[in-house]
């Protein structure tokens, strides 16, 4: 009985996966598809993998690590260095005599076996990228995983910075190109099936496969052991789970996939430079994980597409200086704006009421305690509404505030709101396919009667 159900689920999953790939492939090749959409899809898929790898470590094993950018860096550089075409190595490594490895994995295989060889080469280099990252994770893990959560975060952050400094070291220049840009290596655009472009299909394919492996891992006995460590590591140790070994395992696997995603990012950007892999990148991944839900793989995937979509595309208009056309447009704008503000305030107040929180409460010590975040939010909303009215009355047509950089401010505010008020994230700790079922409470079961 159970086997049949599993098989059915597996087939459905496979069909969905194929459908997605076909859809993405269609988008790659149809005319009039905005290139922004493709960018968002590609970058989203890559960030999805990083977010899942971070979730594996932070969300499923409970190890708060901030070293992701360092492992992405290692993976990106490994991949790039291995695939820069031989004839371009001289110009890429201009600053260093005899720079470059003198061979290119993808070029050699591609020349002998065509597209298939290219694919094989890329796969090999991706795996190597992951292995290099995983190797460093093994090195770092030995001393670092014994630390308590905050210290672990700072130690991994520190290691990421050290890795970044080392990679830029002049003496390693002939291999890494020091602090200069690495480019020219095999990218997604090099893939095609006959005349069909596969630029977006490839990241989806690679990312999807990796995420699939992580899902398998999470649902295996080792994944359960990781979750046990997260929930209560004292009990886990008492039940025979070796903490050091399993934490290291989780760390290495997470870094392996982070390395692969770094390589995928390199392929997407067609260039790599160490300076881009700063702590800020890790923070972005962390925010994606939190928004999606710590402990939910589908959440991380959804959130990364949302994040990339909003930051690259959706909120771009906030950066442009906008002048409205005429009075009618102004009124339309003012109404929509006003309604939006009112809706957000209503939603916020409702959710506060549902949780039983009040703006100002009489605290035990007699003095009122103020929920500053909510009060501040209300104040901002009130000011916004007042401004809205004033704007309609005034002769101006230009919208204030909208200029370069505003997008990121709004973005950061939204993130803070999510972190403060929607800590569970989008999916909480559930997966997309769990939404249908519910873990029945004991009471409900009792109500059903004897079974």
């Amino acid at each position, binding site marked *: 009985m159970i086997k049949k159900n599993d098989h059915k689920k597996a087939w459905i999953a496979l069909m969905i996966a194929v459908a997605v790939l076909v859809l993405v492939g269609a988008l790659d090749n149809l005319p009039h598809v905005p290139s922004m959409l493709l960018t968002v899809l590609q970058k989203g898929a890559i960030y999805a993998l990083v977010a899942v790898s971070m979730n594996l470590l932070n969300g499923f094993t409970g190890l708060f690590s901030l070293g992701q950018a360092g492992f992405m860096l290692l993976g990106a550089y490994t991949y790039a260095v291995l695939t820069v075409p031989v004839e371009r190595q001289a110009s890429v490594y201009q600053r260093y005599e005899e720079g470059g490895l003198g061979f290119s994995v993808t070029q050699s295989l591609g020349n002998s076996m065509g597209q298939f060889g290219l694919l094989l080469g890329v796969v090999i280099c991706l795996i190597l990228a992951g292995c290099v990252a995983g190797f460093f994770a093994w090195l770092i893990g030995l001393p670092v995983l014994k630390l*308590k959560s905050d210290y672990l975060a700072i130690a991994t952050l520190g290691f990421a*910075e050290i890795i970044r400094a080392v990679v830029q070291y002049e003496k390693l220049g002939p291999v890494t190109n020091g602090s200069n840009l690495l480019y020219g290596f095999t990218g997604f655009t090099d893939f095609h099936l006959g005349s069909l472009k596969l630029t977006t299909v490839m990241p989806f394919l690679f990312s999807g496969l990796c995420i699939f492996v992580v899902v398998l891992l999470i649902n295996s006995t080792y994944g359960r052991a990781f979750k046990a460590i997260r929930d209560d590591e004292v009990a886990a140790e008492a039940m025979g789970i070796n903490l050091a070994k399993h934490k290291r395992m989780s760390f290495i696997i997470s870094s392996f996939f982070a390395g692969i995603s770094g390589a995928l990012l390199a392929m997407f950007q067609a260039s790599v430079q160490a300076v881009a892999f700063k702590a800020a990148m890790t*923070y972005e991944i962390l925010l994606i994980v939190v928004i999606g839900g710590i402990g939910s793989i589908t959440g991380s995937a959804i959130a990364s597409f949302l994040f990339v979509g909003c930051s690259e595309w959706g909120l771009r208009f906030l950066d442009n200086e906008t002048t409205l056309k005429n009075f009618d447009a102004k009124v339309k704008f003012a109404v929509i704006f006003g309604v939006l503000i009112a809706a957000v305030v209503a939603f916020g107040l409702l959710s506060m009421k549902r949780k039983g929180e009040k703006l100002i409460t009489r605290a035990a010590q007699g003095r009122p305690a103020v929920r500053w975040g909510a009060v501040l939010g209300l104040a901002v909303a009130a000011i916004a509404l007042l401004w809205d009215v004033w704007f309609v009355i005034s002769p101006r047509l230009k919208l204030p505030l909208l200029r370069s950089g505003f997008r990121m401010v709004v973005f950061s505010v939204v993130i803070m709101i999510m972190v403060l008020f929607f800590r569970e994230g989008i999916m909480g700790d559930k997966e997309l396919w769990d939404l249908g079922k519910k873990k029945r409470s004991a009471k409900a079961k009792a109500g059903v009667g004897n079974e």
Partner: protein
Amino acid sequence: MLDKILPYLLAGVSVGGQYALIAIGYTMVYGILRLINFAHGDIFTVAGFVMVYAAATMPLSVSIPLTIVLTVILGVMVEKVAYRPLRTAPRMSVMISAIGMSYLLQNSMWYLTGGLAKQYPVLPWISDRVNVAGTTTSRVTIITPFLTILLVVVLVVLIKRTKIGMAMRAASRDFETAQLMGIKINNVISFTFVVGSFLAAVGSMLYFSNYATVTPTVGAMPGLKAFVAAVFGGIGSIPGAVIGGFIIGICESLIKGSGLTTFSDAFTFALLIVILAVKPTGLFGENLTEKV
């Protein structure tokens, strides 16, 4: 030999003092809330920007105190908005909130300043060049260590001799029991942030008198290094943070002097790894055992 090293030593002591002032903010907050205030480095940067704008429109006698007051207000508001609501949440959530706050502050600064680097105003007298043992340096370099030590002494006296200081010590020993004993914990925490932000503001004035360019991300590295200093000295220990700050400042300066500039940042982190591996509680930290 000494005259070759001297300028670097002086620079190191100077920047070390600035790190120390920032590190104190980290260590005090961590001692009580067990929170790494990632936004602290950005508060330091904001202090720099406020000064830039204030000094452009007001005389220094107004802009200096104004900067300090505004920085303190910002620090306290960050606590009330981003950390207080999450006080009962798991540690990871608060840390994420701190990171998010840091992100917000950086983006806001970028937006408000248009992304261009600003020049810090020259503060008279402290920016003057002076002659010390054969090398010229700005007076800031000489003043910083003395000022730092003075402030630290005042702070330590405050913590050891006043009621609020005792409350802070109690709260960092055992947060919940302190509350149960009637200590107004919110006031203690706000006061901690007031002190931390005040020191960050002072630190920023000294720092930017040396390195006069202010950008939104300029505080990230000093902030992180100050945090390492706090960990190195023993998180929760103020003297430790100060000593850590000076050590990191001096070593960093000497490394820069010896030509390995790319590694000056990495050195700080290597130091962090070493101390975490050898004695995670830092030089002056305490050991805690968990009851099973």
